[in-house]
């Protein structure tokens, strides 16, 4: 540090105007993805679990499925959506992972001391998580194709299935991000993503909705996962069903908006100067 005599004048960022929200988000999403790719140990388990379930269900129930009425196509097309949805749930914790590390390491404070938009701090991890979920869903779909998945709606239908998986994941990511902001602890955030696990089964998981009864049917009716599963199944097994797709998108949006509001509240509490 002795011989340097740099002018230190090449840039004057201190005098610049605040940057736009999209650029803010873009910069932070890139940063999130960069670090996520450096922790493959966190990315692989959700994919492995999704594929594991897909193969297990297909092998154990694939033959018996003929006895279940209303599946309306191949059992693989019926069960693959479950695999994608459970991947979206277990993968939604990825979004909060960077955030919790930033809070624990103090980098979050450092970001707060820049003119960064507060909403970008929230949206960036969620969107970075969504990118990861999209890749994950694509891998599961690819495995499905290898297992002999037949498509009622072709390639566009596959994209729609992946898109729905991502959209659902965004809602759940909003929840894990809230948990990260609220707790500031990696363990608590991890725990929060396990809360979703039962939700997968309060849905027409193994049989069509029409075969459910009693309280389970009530629970399934208010569970957004139900609508996502049904829309995905129709895309894979029966064909384009505008109503099912519309309902599932609506269910995902309601969930995502509610969870974003929760996350925004958690952020406000965390960044409240006391």
């Amino acid at each position, binding site marked *: 540090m002795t011989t340097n005599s740099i002018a230190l004048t090449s*840039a004057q960022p201190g005098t*610049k105007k605040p940057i736009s929200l999209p650029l803010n988000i873009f910069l932070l999403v890139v940063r999130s993805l960069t670090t996520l790719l450096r922790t493959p140990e966190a990315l692989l388990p959700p994919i492995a679990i999704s594929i594991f379930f897909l193969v297990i269900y297909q092998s154990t129930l694939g033959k018996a499925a003929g006895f279940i009425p209303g599946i309306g196509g191949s059992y693989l097309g019926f069960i693959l959506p479950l695999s994608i949805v459970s991947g979206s749930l277990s993968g939604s914790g990825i979004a909060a992972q960077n955030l919790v590390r930033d809070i624990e390491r103090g980098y979050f404070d*450092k970001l707060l001391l820049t003119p960064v938009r507060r909403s970008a701090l929230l949206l960036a991890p969620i969107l970075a998580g969504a990118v990861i979920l999209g890749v994950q869903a694509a891998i599961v779909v690819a495995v499905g194709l290898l297992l002999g998945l037949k498509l009622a709606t072709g390639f566009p239908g596959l994209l729609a299935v992946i898109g729905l998986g991502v959209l659902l994941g965004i809602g759940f990511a909003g929840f894990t991000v809230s948990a990260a902001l609220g707790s500031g602890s990696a363990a608590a955030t991890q725990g929060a993503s396990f809360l979703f696990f039962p939700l997968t089964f309060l849905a027409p998981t193994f049989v069509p909705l029409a075969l459910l009864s009693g309280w389970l049917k009530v629970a399934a009716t208010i569970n957004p996962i139900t609508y996502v599963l049904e829309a995905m199944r129709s895309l894979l097994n029966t064909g384009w069903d505008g109503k099912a797709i519309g309902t599932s998108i609506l269910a995902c949006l309601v969930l995502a908006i509610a969870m974003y509001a929760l996350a925004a509240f958690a952020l406000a509490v965390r960044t409240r100067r006391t």
Partner: protein
Amino acid sequence: MNDRTITVENLVKTYPGKVMAVQGVNFQVEPGSIFGFLGPNGAGKSTTIKILTTLALPTSGKATVGGFDVVSQATEVRRVAGVALQDVGIDPLMKSMELLVLQGRLFGASRGEAVARAKELLELVQLSDASDRRVGTYSGGMRRRLDLAMALVHQPKVLFLDEPTTGLDPVSRRDVWREVRRLNRELGITIFLTTQYLEEADELADQIAIIVGGKIVTEGSPAKLKAAMGEESINLVFDTPELAEKGRSMLETMGDRVQLDRDMVRLYLSKAAGSIPTVVNRLQEKGLAPISLTLTQPTLDDVFLQVTGQRLVATEVQNQKKASRTSRKAEVN
């Protein structure tokens, strides 16, 4: 109001549970100067720096940084202030180049500008060779230097450094000092630095405030504070604290002031050197012989001892001393 000034008026911070971390602090930092905020752990240094850097709100009182109010103009304060906090807040998975570029872009620089600035700063803090390594692999000193570079990305006019050298080895510490001085002299950045090390404050600061228990107990330039202590002192070390106490009572009338610190007596008086024979004679009359006699100019340590009644010795320095003693023993064996 100069854009490099810091003013603090009647600043109070009470935490829930009625812990009064800062109790009515007042000071002003002149533009382009280095201000040393000195005090032991838990004295209120970090709380003050958090308020000044907009991470915490004061309970009452007023503070401005670069002419902007830290409560109502937090965004403006963040633009003029650079901050390196005590716990180095950097993501271990990122590389230093990435961190600096992101920081620059968040402050509004284009990608090209941010990259140029990052290169410049990495060179400045001598991390160019490590720019492509994950920060998790850096040593403590390297992280501290990176943190300093990050605080400088947006060319702040005021720089806050919270215990910038705590935990660093002596060589890295001198590097940081040199850098701080250079930033101040060459770029005219006003520097507010907290420290537990008297040596550090003495070395760097133009003005010093000593904070203990949330209150400023004294402030002024190092020279002025030392001068206020009396000119010079004769330090006499005795075999036991009891003998030292005897010595103290005998010398009480001789100088401006006498202080007892375990087995050491400090006699403060002007023209100390000329008084040595008289002091020694006086002690000998009563059969007291000190085992050592030294003459010192007052240090900030003395200032601290005088205003707080305790020594400000950071535990780490003691540990280092212990460690070096142990290693010396090992060599002998």
